[in-house]
């Protein structure tokens, strides 16, 4: 897949992984795994980028005697997810056009 496209998609996936409740690094990777494989060194820059864009906020919580960072989606992050859904409708319509008539030929 095109790298730029994939990068944008992964950003959205990470936002989707925290949209219902805040989550932490390893949990995000596990939640995404059935849909898209993401390595730790890929996830880390994404989280930093999303934080810089204020699409999520980070807070450190003490968990069984150590610290864990939880990522919480912001209002802007939720808005980004909504925008993505609209954008994707356009992509689907383009896909339908590209594959038009292919099934009837089979």
């Amino acid at each position: 897949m095109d790298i730029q496209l994939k990068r944008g998609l992964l950003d959205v996936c990470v936002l989707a992984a925290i949209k219902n409740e805040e989550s932490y690094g390893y949990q995000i990777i596990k939640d995404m795994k059935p849909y898209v494989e993401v390595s730790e060194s890929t996830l880390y820059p994404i989280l930093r980028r999303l934080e810089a864009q204020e699409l999520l906020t980070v807070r450190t919580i003490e968990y069984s005697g150590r610290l864990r960072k939880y990522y919480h989606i912001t209002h802007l992050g939720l808005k980004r997810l909504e925008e993505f859904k609209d954008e994707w409708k356009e992509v689907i319509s383009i896909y339908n056009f590209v594959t038009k008539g292919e099934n009837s030929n089979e």
Partner: protein
Amino acid sequence: MNKQEFLTELKKRLSGIPKKDIDQTIEFYEELILDKMEEGQTEEEAIASLDSIDEIVKATLSNVSIPKLVKEKFAPKRSLKTWEIVVIASTAIIWIPLAIVLLSVILSLYVGLWSGVIALAASTISVGASSLIIVGGILDLCMGHAASGIFTIGLALAFLGTALLLGLLTFKLSKLMVVLCKKIILWIKSLFIKRGEKDEN
């Protein structure tokens, strides 16, 4: 490699980027290792399942801007003594022009490469525009000059084909340029961090 060795090595390899970024990266990977261990993996397994240190360094670097790296590298760790300021100021006549020359060389190389791409794009457009003589060819045909009409149309098609090829080449070349620029930027960034020993795994 155990957790402490892994984190120490990573820290060493990242030295050169701002301390805050190093700390955050270390915290992130330490948390991951602990979370994996809590789920039942051994320390070794947890570390083996992570990307190699090389990969992590590369990913972290691509996220730190060059100005930040330069600042980290050259910002004095203590305030300068008077004689040092005098030396820096009095040698400015030498190093400022040198720095300007170096920067201009880099900039002109960059601009030069891109102007090549732009020139190619321009010739694509002009060759493509030349294929408009097809109109003249058709007119010729309509007016009964079959030979010159067909010749002109053929020429126009040849122009069009050439333009298409040139266009494709321009597209590929600009894509290559973008990749190249990214590689160069990463390379420049890697100059700012210490050369660590190669990964043993």
